[in-house]
Structures are given as structure tokens and as C-alpha cells.
């Protein structure tokens, strides 16, 4: 914006304001005039370098000083304000310079900006004004001087401006009001115009102030002359009398004002600086604003901003088309309206609404009519367990953890999944005190993970009870009779009783013990009827099953003795018959034994002493005898020898006093051998296998895999079709020979090794005993119907003797007719259960 316009604007605003302000406005406008003048100077100097520019400034300063000096010469009173004013002015000037340069830099486009700047400037100016006016007459004087300077131009311009202003004034009353109020707020205190006389101090100007007209020449040119230049009338300005150093010194000593006396180089006059001058110098030295009365923090008065637009931007009126609506736009709009009416287009709001509606979920009857969708059959996820009492916010007191449980809870803090609950059961006195469950979100998240990440499979849930797994068997009470308690305890042996047996009628008991005796007892009373001392430990005793004979087979070390218990036991005729039968050995030519047999078996001749003891037949073997088994008819005895290898099993025929070795080759460690009750078969138990041989055909009939680690004993069912095997590894194995060579059932009824077992001859009972305290009586029913499998029911655990050493019960036998069980115990007793 050109400066004249700015000036014009300024003027306008000042006119619009209340009268009080007018004076200031004029002041500012005069400032502007100065600016204008100086602009020309600046333009000229623009070629010069910065340093030159500075020099120029200095020069100008010097010039002004000269002028001031002249004033001071006139009057001391006027001197100070003048100088002050000049400095003021210079500062103003510099301000305006900046402003102008800014203006020139700015384009027309940045008009508002420049306006703002100007307004700021003007603000600053006006800011100075009140303080100046408020302080003293000085400011008045200054104003007057300035006005004198610009008198003519002011008058001329004012008239034109006022005319232009009146037009705008009407337009922008509102903005003016705002401005007025603003200004009132700012409280600019000024004096009315009437009070001031512009020409009070005479018509002076800067030019007239200049006393010395010598121009800008170095002062030393006048060194040789008595004058220093010329005044306006061309008269010489006489130098004041020059002082030498002594004079100076004297003056220094005498004159109290000397310290503030300076010499003006342009006139050569001494100038005494006033108090104000000194203050100003002091302030300048401190680089503060020279005038002490200047207020730097005056309130801001807005002249021209976004809100306040006191002046128009342009001076010319608006074009007509700016008032009339556009024709083409009208056409466009009508087209759009038509399209909207016809529904060809939609408004933005409509579109947005539609979009929003589309995003909103619409629910409808999904399971109404409609085809079925086939999806692969899915396994529903298992539901979460429902809460127990412990989860309650107020659980019963028993669910709260006591101190011990709490300790365990704390101990498992590292492994919380091992805890009893996932939460700590706590009691809250009221619902209000229940806090949020901190793991709730986590638990829900884990459930989500389970739902999509956990593998699923159909698992049949067991709806059975544990009791259902136990086989349903008839109650033992329905399977009576069987022995239920101990009825008789027979003592008398001095060492553990190895073996016991009933006689075929069941009246007597024979027992063999480690103390080297064989004793015969009466079953009904338990009285010892006879004791046979044999001198060595008896391994086995077995009464012959033949009814017409009275014979007991005794295994005594390597020998097998056949004892006749005596005439006082049982029918004496039977005893006598037996004696008669065994008195005469058969003729020697009848006894035909091959060399293999005779090398290991020796039928001994029984001497009179032994005969008297009851020994009727004695057979010596090459190895100790471990097991003796009678054939059902009583003619044959199968003897098992320890470590006999191929000759471990020997079969003796009593009637012919002859022995046989049925096996040619060893098939393992033979444990025992027993005869089939009625068929010519022999069961030979080795360590793990039971072999069934046909003695007539001399061939292996069957090999039974027991599955046991070490067989201890075998027993054949009286019917002959079933076999029971006992083993040291606590098992009882039942074989149904008709069914298969595999075990029909394996019973683990014992806690220790099973050493003995026996079938009852008439009742469907069997008993087993071993190294644990209990004898087990079981029901073993074999049906004649081949389709029906044997029924095995353990009936009773009979408490046996205490364990002595490792052993407990060594042998069991059933009474031939009664359900009575006889046990040979390791604690030197024989026990009868009924």
C-alpha cells in the first residue's frame, strides 16, 4: 500500500474517533509525512553499503545536534525538551523506516498483513502519545513544532480525506462502534484541541534551527579562523575564546559544573548538560528507552484486525455482479434440484444415512421357512462346569481355607493349576463388598481359546460304577458249606510241618515234619495216635487213596518210605492185610528194570528194625525226593526228584516193586508230577509250563502255558478236566482242559507266594495257601454241560498262622467227605478249619 494511502486511512480513523483523539491522529499523520520524506532519502541511499548507511546516520545525528545547540544557545529552558524530542523523533523515524521497507517488500496481495503491521505501528505511536501528553508541556511543544513543520500539507490533505471519510463512515458504523468502545477501554487521555495554540512558540522548523550554515565540512577547516561558520544572515559565528590546558585545569578546579560541560564541535560552545540530559544518557548507556516517562507496556488498542475493520480495504465501490446471483450457477442448481426430485441423485446426507443403515445389523427370522443347510456334523464343545458352593460370595464356613490349606495354597503359587480351586474361596459379609474378579477376562479368553484351538474327540463317558467292574458272582452265603473258621489247632511237632494228609476215610491225619517224625492224629479229637521217628526231615507224606490199604508214602531225603501206620489206627484187618501184601516181595524175575532206571532207583530190603517201626517198603533214589503223588488206584506212586534232569520223574509200581522213568529227555526244571484221576495221563509241571503226557501211548498230549513265572504246585480237579496251578508269583491259574491250553482264569487271591493248593473230592471247593497269612477257600464249580464254563467264586479268607520266617502255610488238604480244611503251618502246628 502506498504511504499516502496509509496516511489517508490513518486520518480517516482519527476523524471517526471522538474528538479527544483527533490531536493524536494528526500527530501520527505528521509522522507519516516525515516517513514519506525520508523514504526518498532511503531510496537514494539504497546503493550505499551498510557501513555507509551507518555513517550517514551518524552524520545526520551530528547535524541535528548542531541544530539543538543553537536552540540551547537561545534558551536553556527549551534546550532539554528539544533534545529529547529530537531523539524521540529519530527513534520514530527509524521505526517508520522499518515499516516502509516492510511495505515495499510486501506485495499488494499481502495487504491485510501490511495493514496489520501499520496498525501495530500506529498503536505503538499512539501508545507513546498519552504518556507524552500526560507528562508535561514538553510533548505539547513537540507536537506544535511538528505541526508547524507540516502545516500546509496537513491542511490540504485533511479536506480531501474528510470527504472520503464521510462516505465510509456510514458504511462501517458498526466497526467504528467497536473501535470506539475499544478506544474508550484503552483510556487514552488527551487534551482537547482548543486548549492548544499551534503557533505559540513561533513558526519554527528544523531548517530554521540550523544556526551554522557552513555545511558538512570538516571542522578543522576553520581552525585557523576566529569563526566556525556563518549564520543564516551570513554573519560569522565567532568562536568562543579558546582555552589552553592551564585554563582547562583551572576551570576544572573552579567550576563545579565542569564535569557535565561538553563542547559542541560545530559551534565550539560549551554546553552544560542538564539533569534530564544526564538521566537520558544514563538510560541510553543502559540500553533502555531514553525517555523515563515512556510506558512500554501500554494496553493494546486494536485498529485493524480480523474483528475490527475500521477502514475499507478498497476505496472503489463493489461491482454490480457482486450483488446479483450468478446465472450459470442458477442453472446448475436447478439441474441438481430436478435430479433430486426425480430421484436420480441423492444428497450427501441421504447417502450417509443409507450407508449407516446398511452398516446396522438387521435381524430377521433366520429359522423361519427355508431350506436346511447341510454342514458337517460337529461335536459340541463341552460345557463349563457349574459352580460349587465354594465359589459363592458367601460360602459355608467349611469351604473357607484354614491355615494349613492356606499354606498349601501359598506353596502352589508357582503352579496354580495344581491348586484345589482356581479361585480363593472368600467370604464377603455383604454383596456390596464383592469386588470384581480379576481373572475374569482371562478365563473368558481361555474359554475362547479352548473353543477354537482345543482338539475335540468323542469320548465315551463311563456311566458305570466302580462296583460294576467287579464280576457279578453268587454270594458266598449261597455257596455253603465251606470252612469259615478254625476249629482245631494240633500242636506236637517240634519243627515246621512240611506236609499233612487225611486217610481215605478222613478219620486220621498224618503229618510229616522237619523234626524227623511222622505223626498220626485223630481228626475228631486231635489226639496224637502214633509218632514214627525217622531221623531225618520229612519232605512229604501222602496217604494211599486205595481203601483196602493202610499205607503212607513218606519222602525222607533220597528215600521214599511206605509206612503202615499200624493196627491201632483204623481197621486192624486192613493193616494186617497190607502187611501181608507187602511182606513178600514179588519174585525177582518179575522185576524188570532197565539199566537207566536201576542206576537211579534202588528198591531196598526192609530190615526187621525198620519193619517194626512200620516201614514196609523203602526205595532209594539218586537225588532227594521233593514230591510224591499217588495214583488214584494206589498201585503207582509218582516221585519227583530234585535236580533230576531227565530222570526227575520216577514212577514206582508197588505191586511189582518196579520203577519206570517215563521221560527220556529233560524238558526243564520239574516241580512236580501228578496223575490224572482216572485216565492214564501224567501232568508234569516244570518251571513255567505244565505238560500232559499219555502214559500208555507215551506221547505228549498237551502243553499248558501257565503264564506264571515259577510254578509251585498243581492240583487236578477230581473230574479230571480242570487243572489248577499255583505259582510262587502269587497266582492261581485255572485251566479248563476241554477249553484250551491257555488259562481259563488267573486268580490273584494271595499276597505272597502260593505254595499249596487242593481240590475237595466231593464238594466244589478248592483251597490255596502260601506265604501270606490267609488261606483262601474258593468255590470251583465244574458243570457237566460242556457249554457252561466253570464258575470260580472266592469264598473266604481264613486267617492262618502267623508268618514264621518267610513261610506261613506249607500244605493244605481237604477232608475226603467233609468240607474241612487241614493246613500244615510253619509255626509247628496243624490247623483244621470247618
Amino acid at each position, binding site marked *: 500500500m502506498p504511504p499516502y494511502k496509509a496516511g489517508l486511512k490513518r486520518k480517516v480513523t482519527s476523524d471517526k474517533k471522538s474528538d479527544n483523539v483527533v490531536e493524536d491522529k494528526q500527530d501520527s499523520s505528521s509522522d507519516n509525512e516525515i516517513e514519506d520524506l525520508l523514504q526518498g532519502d532511503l531510496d537514494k541511499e539504497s546503493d550505499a553499503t551498510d557501513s555507509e548507511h551507518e555513517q550517514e546516520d551518524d552524520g545526520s545525528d551530528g547535524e541535528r545536534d548542531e541544530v539543538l545547540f543553537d536552540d540551547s544557545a537561545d534558551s536553556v529552558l527549551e534546550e532539554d525538551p528539544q533534545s529529547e524530542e529530537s531523539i524521540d523523533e529519530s527513534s520514530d523515524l527509524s521505526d517508520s523506516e522499518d515499516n516502509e521497507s516492510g511495505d515495499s517488500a510486501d506485495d499488494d496481495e499481502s495487504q491485510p498483513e501490511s495493514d496489520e503491521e501499520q496498525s501495530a505501528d500506529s498503536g505503538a505511536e499512539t501508545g507513546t502519545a498519552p504518556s507524552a501528553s500526560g507528562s508535561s508541556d514538553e510533548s505539547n511543544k513537540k507536537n506544535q513544532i511538528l505541526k508547524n513543520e507540516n502545516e500546509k500539507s496537513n491542511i490540504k490533505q485533511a479536506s480531501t480525506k474528510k470527504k472520503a471519510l464521510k462516505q465510509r463512515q456510514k458504511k462501517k458504523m458498526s466497526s467504528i462502534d467497536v473501535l470506539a468502545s475499544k478506544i474508550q477501554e484503552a483510556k487514552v487521555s488527551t487534551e482537547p484541541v482548543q486548549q492548544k495554540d499551534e503557533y505559540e512558540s513561533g513558526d519554527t522548523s528544523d531548517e530554521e534551527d540550523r544556526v551554522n550554515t557552513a555545511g558538512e565540512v570538516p571542522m578543522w577547516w576553520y581552525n585557523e579562523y576566529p569563526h566556525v561558520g556563518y549564520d543564516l544572515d551570513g554573519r560569522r559565528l565567532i568562536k568562543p575564546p579558546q582555552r589552553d590546558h592551564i585554563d582547562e585545569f583551572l576551570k576544572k578546579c573552579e567550576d563545579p559544573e565542569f564535569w557535565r560541560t561538553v563542547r559542541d564541535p560545530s559551534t565550539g560552545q560549551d554546553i552544560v548538560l542538564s539533569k534530564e540530559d544526564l538521566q537520558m544518557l544514563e538510560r541510553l548507556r543502559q540500553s533502555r528507552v531514553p525517555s523515563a516517562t515512556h510506558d512500554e507496556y501500554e494496553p493494546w488498542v486494536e485498529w485493524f484486525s480480523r474483528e475490527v475493520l475500521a477502514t475499507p480495504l478498497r476505496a472503489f465501490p463493489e461491482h454490480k455482479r457482486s450483488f446479483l446471483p450468478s446465472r450459470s450457477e442458477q442453472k446448475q442448481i436447478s439441474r441438481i434440484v430436478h435430479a433430486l426430485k426425480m430421484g436420480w441423485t441423492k444428497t450427501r446426507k441421504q447417502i450417509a444415512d443409507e450407508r449407516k443403515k446398511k452398516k446396522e445389523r438387521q435381524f430377521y427370522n*433366520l429359522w423361519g421357512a427355508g431350506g436346511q443347510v447341510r454342514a458337517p456334523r460337529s461335536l459340541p464343545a463341552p460345557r463349563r462346569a457349574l459352580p460349587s458352593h465354594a465359589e*459363592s460370595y458367601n460360602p*459355608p464356613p467349611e469351604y473357607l481355607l484354614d491355615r494349613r490349606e492356606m499354606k498349601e495354597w501359598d506353596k502352589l503359587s508357582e503352579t496354580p493349576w495344581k491348586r484345589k480351586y482356581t479361585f480363593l474361596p472368600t467370604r464377603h459379609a455383604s454383596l*456390596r463388598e464383592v469386588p470384581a474378579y480379576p481373572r475374569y477376562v*482371562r478365563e473368558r479368553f481361555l474359554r475362547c481359546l479352548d473353543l477354537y484351538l482345543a482338539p475335540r*474327540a468323542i469320548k465315551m463317558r463311563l456311566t458305570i460304577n*466302580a462296583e460294576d*467292574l467287579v464280576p457279578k458272582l453268587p454270594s458266598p452265603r449261597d455257596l455253603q458249606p465251606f470252612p469259615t473258621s478254625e476249629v482245631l489247632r494240633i500242636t506236637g511237632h517240634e519243627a515246621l510241618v512240611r506236609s499233612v494228609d487225611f486217610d481215605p476215610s478222613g478219620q486220621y491225619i498224618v503229618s510229616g515234619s522237619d523234626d524227623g517224625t511222622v505223626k498220626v492224629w485223630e481228626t475228631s479229637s486231635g489226639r496224637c495216635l502214633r509218632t514214627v521217628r525217622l531221623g531225618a526231615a520229612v519232605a512229604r507224606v501222602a496217604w494211599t487213596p486205595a481203601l483196602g490199604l493202610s499205607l503212607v508214602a513218606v519222602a525222607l531225603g533220597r528215600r521214599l518210605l511206605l509206612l503202615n501206620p499200624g493196627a491201632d489206627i483204623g481197621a486192624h484187618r486192613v493193616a494186617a492185610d497190607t502187611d501181608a501184601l507187602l511182606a513178600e516181595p514179588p519174585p525177582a524175575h518179575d522185576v524188570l528194570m532197565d539199566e537207566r532206571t536201576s542206576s537211579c532207583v534202588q528198591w531196598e530190603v526192609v530190615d526187621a528194625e525198620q519193619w517194626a517201626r512200620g516201614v514196609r517198603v523203602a526205595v532209594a533214589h539218586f537225588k532227594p525226593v521233593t514230591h510224591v503223588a499217588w495214583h488214584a488206584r494206589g498201585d503207582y506212586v509218582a516221585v519227583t526228584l530234585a535236580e533230576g534232569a531227565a530222570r526227575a520223574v520216577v514212577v514206582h509200581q508197588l505191586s511189582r516193586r518196579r520203577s519206570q522213568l517215563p521221560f527220556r529227555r529233560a524238558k526243564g526244571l520239574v516241580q512236580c508230577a501228578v496223575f490224572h484221576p482216572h485216565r492214564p495221563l501224567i501232568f508234569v509241571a516244570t518251571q513255567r509250563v505244565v505238560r500232559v503226557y499219555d502214559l500208555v501211548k507215551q506221547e505228549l498230549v498237551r502243553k499248558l502255558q501257565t503264564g506264571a513265572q515259577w510254578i509251585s504246585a498243581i492240583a487236578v480237579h477230581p473230574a479230571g478236566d480242570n487243572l489248577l496251578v499255583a505259582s510262587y508269583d502269587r497266582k492261581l491259574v485255572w485251566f479248563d482242559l476241554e477249553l484250551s491250553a491257555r488259562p481259563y482264569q488267573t486268580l490273584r487271591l494271595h499276597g505272597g507266594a502260593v505254595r499249596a493248593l487242593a481240590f475237595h473230592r466231593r464238594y466244589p471247593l478248592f483251597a490255596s495257601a502260601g506265604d501270606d497269612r490267609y488261606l483262601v477257600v474258593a468255590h470251583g464249580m465244574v458243570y457237566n454241560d460242556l457249554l457252561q464254563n466253570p464258575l*470260580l467264586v472266592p469264598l473266604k479268607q481264613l486267617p492262618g498262622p502267623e508268618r514264621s520266617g518267610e513261610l506261613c502255610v506249607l500244605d493244605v488238604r481237604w477232608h475226603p467227605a467233609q468240607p474241612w480244611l487241614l493246613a500244615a503251618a510253619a509255626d509247628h502246628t496243624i490247623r483244621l478249619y470247618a
Partner: protein
Amino acid sequence: MVAKKKKKYSSGEGAQFMTRKAALKKLQLTLKDFRRICILKGIYPREPRNRKRAQKGAGGIKTLYHTKDIKFLLHEPIIWKLRELKVFQQKIRKARAMREYQKMKKYFRDYPEINIDHIVKERYPTFVDALRDLDDCLTLCFLFSTFPSLKRVPPDQSLLCRRLTVEFMHAVIAAKALRKVFVSVKGYYYQAELEGQTITWIVPHHFSFQPQSKDEVDFKIMSTFVEFYIMMLGFVNFKLYHSLNLVYPPKLTAAFNADTEKDLVDERVYVSERIAAMNISVARIAGANEVEELPEIDIFNTEDTDPQKLEEAKLEAEKVKKLKTMFKGLKFFINREVPREPLVFIIRCFGGEVSWDRNHFVGATFDETDESIAYQIVDRPTMDKQYLSRYYIQPQWVFDSVNTRSLLPINKYLMGAVLPPHLSPFVDKTKDQVYIPPEARALNDPNFKPLSEDGPSEEEIEEDSEEEKEEKEESEDEDAEKALTKQYQQEVEQDSQSEDESDDDIDPEKKKLAKEKKKAMAVTTGVTFKENPYQKEIEDKQAFRLREKLVRKKHRNLYKSMKAGQEKRKKDIWLLRKKRRLHDEKVKEENKVEKRKQKMQMLEAAST
């Protein structure tokens, strides 16, 4: 010519299963997308019978899916949608990188929505199927309805969850379907019965949302679940409302208070707030009957059904019917400190009327000053202003009453009283080896009297009585357990006797005759052999122990583990009983001391 050798794993279990990696390759999806589609479609890994074969001989444990499932996914149109999304995401990413925010905004605006209606139908072909699987859905939706806006959760999800859950609760209220409630430390458990399906859900306590660490909880996964559950719950709600003759997006029956309130600024907000208050029944479809009575169960004499069972079912139905109108005609007022939503829901479910402080929440129907209020639910020890016309009870009364299906006596639940334990209604009492706390037993049979509970009346009596008497009672109480066992034994004996008698009753005349005969013979009366029951029991036990040894080898381990479980349960029950006994004794002791103290004080007061 040699036949072509069959390739291994081309049939059988090897061909049935597919590892996740193979599935990803087949579907050409990223793991993220695959996870999403699996969640939406309800596809999950399967446990193979033979893992080695299913993994085609590979070692380790791999996530296996049914090949059939993956092939099923292959035809899913959503997969194409997912690919479209991917393109969109790329576009958005590019726009962001180029700082074309206008464009980005537009992309966000036009972001394609995945429509999963058909998946809901596919996964739940019938409405009942959906109801059966509603547990997790409701639990998660109720949780999400409490969530603030989260980074990985779409912004509208939580609001929608809130809306749908409130709608569902309205449906439950209208159907009177709520059966059981339980306040646990985790939250409120509700069990409703809709269309014959029991649905159980949990609503967390207030302020359940807490910031979770990233490796603890992945909200993205939960949000995907919620995405599906929202649709499912929406459709279920629609169907429920329809079956109940309600207008689906629920509307209020009457625009109440419309005249008093000034012009509604936003009617939708107004309605939704009132609906959230759950205090006004929602609008019915015009012309629908208000109440539909369920027909009574008729008993058919079919051969296969057990008449006793039928009788039980009938009884149960009657009880449920009573439960539905338990609070009918009763007015409740909820105090400020009581959690409003659960109680309003429960009371309204059983026909009660509720209100609360007008300043507390919108939708209050009557004020505290209303004299017709029957119960005021308070959760503070005392109140300044009390009305004589109503009971001041603690909230647990409502929960316990619902679980026992009758209005419980309020004396234990009065304001400031120490509450009796709150028991879970979900414990199956019919199962054996379940510990039933004495309180629950007391509920089941009125004759049972738990040890610890001294009714106020009893206390008074005790106070009146002399000390000796007290001591006597105490000693009695100490032996109460013994007495109980004795009583039990007596009962058993009575039962057996009665049975015997019933046997004998068949021919009493004969018996008489026999007696006469005996008298005539003049022989001393023979003492019948009486089997010692103890002995018999021992024998049976022994026999059983023997039989136990005959358990087949195949089942032995199973049997052992089952036995161990039984033992453990037994031990747990034993422990609980013991703890309870100790606790009761302690409480009794304390009571005694207190009483004595009181007496002493009384005496002192009297003397002075």
C-alpha cells in the same frame, strides 16, 4: 504285471486328517485369516485315534483338522470376502503412507462388511440348536457389554453387545424363564430354561474390565468370537421375541411420563435408556394374549415310563409354575448401594415390581415414600429413616428365595444381620458322594436342624432357663452327632421292621396259630437266630474284597482309578464335615461366652 503299489496314507486315518500348515496351504490363507474363519465357522482341531498315522508318520504333536472340514471351508464365500478385505487393507496402508487422508477416510467408510447370517443358520440349523449353544455366547456378550473402547475391538461391538444382552434379558423376563441364580466371586450366574434348553450364563461384577497384558489376553480373538455371537444372539432374540409375541426391536408398552417430560430431544435415546432400565415391559404385538398358561402335564399309563418319575415330573412342573409368579404383586424398592441390574432382572422375572431412587438411574416407577412397598432391599447396616410398612432385607434373600422356589422367612436376612451362607443351586444333590452343607439339608427336610443355628426363640428359652439346663443342652448338643447317627440307625431299623411287618401282615392268622401251637407244645420259646448285622457286614465286605481281586486285568487300572477317585471324594467330604464341626463348636463356644457375659452384666445392673 505287478499291481501299482498303494501310496501310504492315501486312505484311512492318514487321509482323514490334515495338519494346520497343510490346511493353510490348501486354503491359501494367512494364519490370521484362517483363525478368523475357523472361529466364525466353528471349525476346530480333532483328536485322532492314532496320532502317528494321522500325522502321516511325522513325529511330535501337530494340530490336526479333519480334511472334510477343510474342504468344507474351501467352499465358503467368506474366504473371497477375506481376500477383498486384504486388498482394502493394502489400499488403506498405501493411502496412509502417501498421506492421502481423504482417500483413506473414504476407504474406511467403504470398508466391506462380512455378512455371516448364513453361517449362523449353517451352524445352528434349528432354533433349539442355537439355544443349546448359547452359554458361551451370552457370557462373552455380557462381558463385552462392559468393555470400554479398545484398540483391537471394533467400536460398535460393545454397544451392540449391550443392546442385545438387554434385549435378551427382556425376553427372559417376558418368558419368565429364569430358574436359578447364584452370586459367585466371579459374577452372577443365571440359569434360564428356554424351549426346554437350560442356558447358563455369567454376568461379571462391576468394574470387571482391567487392562490385560498382551500375552495374557488377545482381545482380537475374543472380538472375532463376539462378531459371530452378536449375529447369533440377534437372531435368537428376534426369534424369541416373535415366539413371545413381542415387537422385536423392543418398544415400551406406553410412552409413560410423556406429558410430564418436556419435548423429547432424541426419542431413540429415551427409549433405549428406559429399555436398559428393564423396568417396563416391552410392547406386545397387537392382539396377542397377555398370559399363556402352559397345559398341565397329563399322565399317560405307558408301560415304559416309571410312574414315580412321572409323579416327580408333575411335582417339579408345579413348583416351577409357582416359582414363575413368586414375586407377583410384591413391590420392591432397591436402595442406592445395591447392584441394580441383577436384582431388577430377577425380581421382574418372577413378576415383582421394582423401583429405585429416581436420581440413581432412569426408569424408576415409584418413590421410596410409596407405602405399598413390601420389601426394601438394602445393603448397609443401618438406615436413618425406616418405614414400618415394609421389610428391610439384604439382597441375598432374593437370590436364596429364587433358589428354594419360595419366599424364605426374612428373619435371617434383615438389615444388618449376619447372612447365612449363600449356596450354589447347581450342585447335583442326586449324585452320590456329594457333600451337602447342613443349610442345604435343612432346606430339603424341615425336621433337620443344623447344629450351629440357634434360632432367636430358642435363645430366649435358653436365657430363661437355668444354667444347669443350659449345660445339659450343651452336652446334648455335643453329642448331637452321635444322637444323629443313633437316630439314623433307629430309622433304618424301623424301616426294616416295617418291611418285616409288611411281610408278616400277609398272614397274621397263621402267625397266631403258630404261636398257639407253640404254647400248646409247652416248649420254651425258641430264640430265632439273629444274625449280627455287624458280623454280616464284615463278611460281605470280605467277600467283596475277594471278588475285587477278580476284576479283569483289562479293567483293573480303571477300577483302581475309580476307587481312588471315590476315596478322594470321600476324604474331601470327611474333611468338609470335620471343618464344619470344628467351626460350629467354635461358634457355640463364643456364643456361650457372650451369653454368660450378658448375664453377668444383667446381674450387675440388677444389683446396682
